């Protein structure tokens, strides 16, 4: 599976709420961030949890979010950020 996104690109986390084992935290769904780096490609944990092999390996990114855009009432510095590893299939171009 080829990586679709480049470092610095703006992406949005899908606002989906599926069942099963998910590693995209609830709090970040629907948020817009930017790609901090491509970590590599790894077997899909959602599938590994169901005793399947999780292949083909999926691109995994670290995505950087501004805290004030994640939490409406965030009370720190406007430059504070939150960086989360998110699999490609949870991301779309923003």
């Amino acid at each position, binding site marked *: 599976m080829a990586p679709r996104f480049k470092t610095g690109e703006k992406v949005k986390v899908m606002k989906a709420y599926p069942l099963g084992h998910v*590693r*995209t*935290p609830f*709090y970040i769904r629907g948020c817009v961030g930017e790609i901090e780096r491509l*970590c*590599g490609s*790894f077997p899909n*944990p959602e599938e590994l949890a169901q005793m399947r092999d999780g292949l083909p390996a999926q691109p*995994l990114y*670290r995505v950087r979010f501004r*805290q004030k855009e*994640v*939490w409406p009432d*965030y*009370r*720190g*510095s406007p*430059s*504070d*950020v*939150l*960086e*989360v*590893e*998110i*699999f490609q299939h949870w991301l779309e171009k923003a």
Partner: protein
Amino acid sequence: MTDRGKYQPLSYFQLMEVTLRELLVEKGLLTEAQVQAEVAAMRDRTPERGARVVAKAWTDAAFKQRLLENGTTACEELGLGLGTLKLVVVENTPQVHNAIVCTLCSCYPRMLLGIPPDWYKSRNYRSRMVREPRAVLAEFGLRIAEHVTIRIHDSTADMRYMVLPLRPAGTEGWSEQRLAALVSRDAMIGVAIPSLS
């Protein structure tokens, strides 16, 4: 006759541990010796290993660059085998303070630093560290200035994280060993900073 004052019956979960272990040994899937060896290996993984990496990064700029590019291979240079751990090292600077959390469970660079502390796995830390890191850090006694950016890393997938703290002032010329003694586990999680006091 059992001395009732001393004997503590096993809890259900302790019973389950004995039960599973014995079943797995019976089935030839592991041996008692392997379990003991793994327990011993995990005991040997302590934060001192991370402190060595930090001290080297503080004294060797080229190593530090390699560490920031690929934490795993840099640790392997020092003979610190990390197995399959994919380590990302994030650097504190005068402008940026990093801290690590795993909101979904308690992912932690175990193969480098050992087993994480209870509080790192607690509901309160996991819930609040992404949302109000400055308040949580203040509870740890760490007040980060407003002009410093806080960068929180939520370990949700395959990477594991370690903070490279800022080298304290007044340590010029110190040996790596002396520097390593300044670096606590909490500083490598990002809830403390090394200091001379």
